[in-house]
């Protein structure tokens, strides 16, 4: 009986992939590979190209990683190496609580707290100093790649920090002792002996965070501005694949429109699966070699 139950999962995955592929087939046959790199999305004319969404998904996730990785690694290093014992559990718990906040609540907070904050405090000095670069050009209305990236960063910090912490905890004490014994300062011991030892596990943690960011829907939909356009400026609105499905699926009036959205879903699914598989693989390799990180995942 347990075996039958266990077989449900693979069947479910097959059904999911099959259904996505079948529903997306009309769009795949009609547009072929050009769906991936053309940017016209015109439901009236029946022409669909998903390049802006794919770009926006990758750009917002990379921006999120840029902000979240130093933060999450800092938390993990502090909690495993430097923090007083009594502080470790409570702080780890609080950071992990960030993962419990529903996406839609992040969206609400982003609209009414984060965007006004970015507009008043963060963006003016950024533009004053770096406004000449293409990354910070144009007018800032609020809903933008920047807002979406920042909210994503906050959302993935708990995941990266939790896994990194497990990885660092698994590094043998002898690594630290050896470095300290050779006269390294405490930071040098961490940076030259502990972090490199768990490197593959840490990279796995980051890739897992990336997987989360790519598929995140509600908060990003509420903050990123939802505009079909490819632009380098983080101050401009953008679009993501998940947001496009959330916004347009119930309005898709023609079969081809619906099919195009299913193809977007299929692409999103394939990308997240690939990223997650890569993360698992990295952690697997570490686990086989040195056992670091095997417990974390």
């Amino acid at each position: 009986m347990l075996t039958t139950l266990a077989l449900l999962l693979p069947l479910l995955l097959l059904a999911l992939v099959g259904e996505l592929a079948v529903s997306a087939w009309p769009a795949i046959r009609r547009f072929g590979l050009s769906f991936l790199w053309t940017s016209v999305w015109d439901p009236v004319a029946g022409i669909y190209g998903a390049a802006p969404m794919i770009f926006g998904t990758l750009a917002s996730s990379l921006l999120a990683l840029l902000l979240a990785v130093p933060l999450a690694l800092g938390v993990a290093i502090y909690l495993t190496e430097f923090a007083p014992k009594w502080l470790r559990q409570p702080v780890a718990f609080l950071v992990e609580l960030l993962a419990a906040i529903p996406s839609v609540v992040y969206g609400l907070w982003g609209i009414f707290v984060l965007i006004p904050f970015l507009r008043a405090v963060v963006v003016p000095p950024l533009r004053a100093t770096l406004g000449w670069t293409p990354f910070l050009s144009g007018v800032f209305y609020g809903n933008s790649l920047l807002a979406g990236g920042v909210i994503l960063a906050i959302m993935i910090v708990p995941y990266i920090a939790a896994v990194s912490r497990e990885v660092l905890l698994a590094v043998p004490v002898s690594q630290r002792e050896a470095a300290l014994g050779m006269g390294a300062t405490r930071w040098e011991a961490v940076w030259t002996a502990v972090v490199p030892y768990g490197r593959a596990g840490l990279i796995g943690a980051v890739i897992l965070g990336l997987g989360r960011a790519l598929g995140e829907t509600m908060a990003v939909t509420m903050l990123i501005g939802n505009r079909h356009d490819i632009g380098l400026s983080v101050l401009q609105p953008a679009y993501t694949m998940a947001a496009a499905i959330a916004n347009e699926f119930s309005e898709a009036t023609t079969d081809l429109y619906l099919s195009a959205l299913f193809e977007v879903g299929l692409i999103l699914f394939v990308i997240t699966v690939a990223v997650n598989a890569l993360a698992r693989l990295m952690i697997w390799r570490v686990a086989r070699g040195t056992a670091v990180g095997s417990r974390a995942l």
Partner: protein
Amino acid sequence: MSARRLRRRIVSGAMTALVAVLSFVAVLALVLILGYLVAKGASSLDWSFFVKNPVPAGQAGGGVANAIVGTVIIVGLAALIGLPIGIGTGLYLAEYGSGRLGWVVRFVADVLNGTPSIVVGIFAWTWLVKPMGHFSALAGSVALAVLMVPMLARTTEEMVRLVPHSLREAALALGYPRWRTSLRVIARTALAGSVALAVLMVPMLARTTEEMVRLVPHSLREAALALGYPRWRTSLRVIARTALAGIVTGCLVGIARVAGETAPLLFTALGNLNFSTSVLQPMQTLSLQIYVYATGPFDEWHRLAWAAALVLMGLVLLLSLAARWAIRQRHGAAR
């Protein structure tokens, strides 16, 4: 020489301070989010907020009674479908999952665990909403269950693996038939009820479960087998007794996670302005209500969105804290 040493000391001190500040920033983010929820939402929490339904756009007042009831029904139904499947899969992974099928199931659970919830939403739409011809709470529940199962399965597996074999043996004496009967009843009800929600839940559960079981030392396993206990009986024992707290934790975390989900419900449960308890009709949830109110143009809506978010957050936190408490019951002395 000493200047260089001084420099190294300063770098070490500065980096220590930096990682401490980064930790502070992460905690600050949490404090800011929860603080704003309380500051902006608490004043709107009165009796009518909990017992009234939404009023037409632009009017003042109204509540979210329909959304609260809807959340409970949809998430409850999702748990009904997802928990048995997720836990069962987790047990399988923990106890029999060393072969090729185990590897496949575990891999699939991990894949589904990382699947964007919006993709599960359109999947549930094609399988349930389209054939039935209308949106329904049931379809929403199924979508949530699908999200829940992989996590639950893995949690359960981990939990069961944590249990030492000696404890398995003891538990064996106590309750095998009862456990199996209840599992069977639950599984049957759930399957009859709704499939999609379960789909979400199972992979989550399966993975969690596996991790738990894996932590059991091999020596203990061998000892139990050497004593002549059939494998399946020992595994059941384990679950029924010692891993229970861990599995309960996994379930609570799984439920907490899907309770706040919005994306899979957009095209399944859809939302409903009126009070409805029929699972075959569109139904409102707190998460859908927050989405509509937060993105809408009225100040009154924004006020209600904050209040609804505070209620939802309270619900999720309660489940998370209960999960912590449950695991502490089991590991209390160790930590």
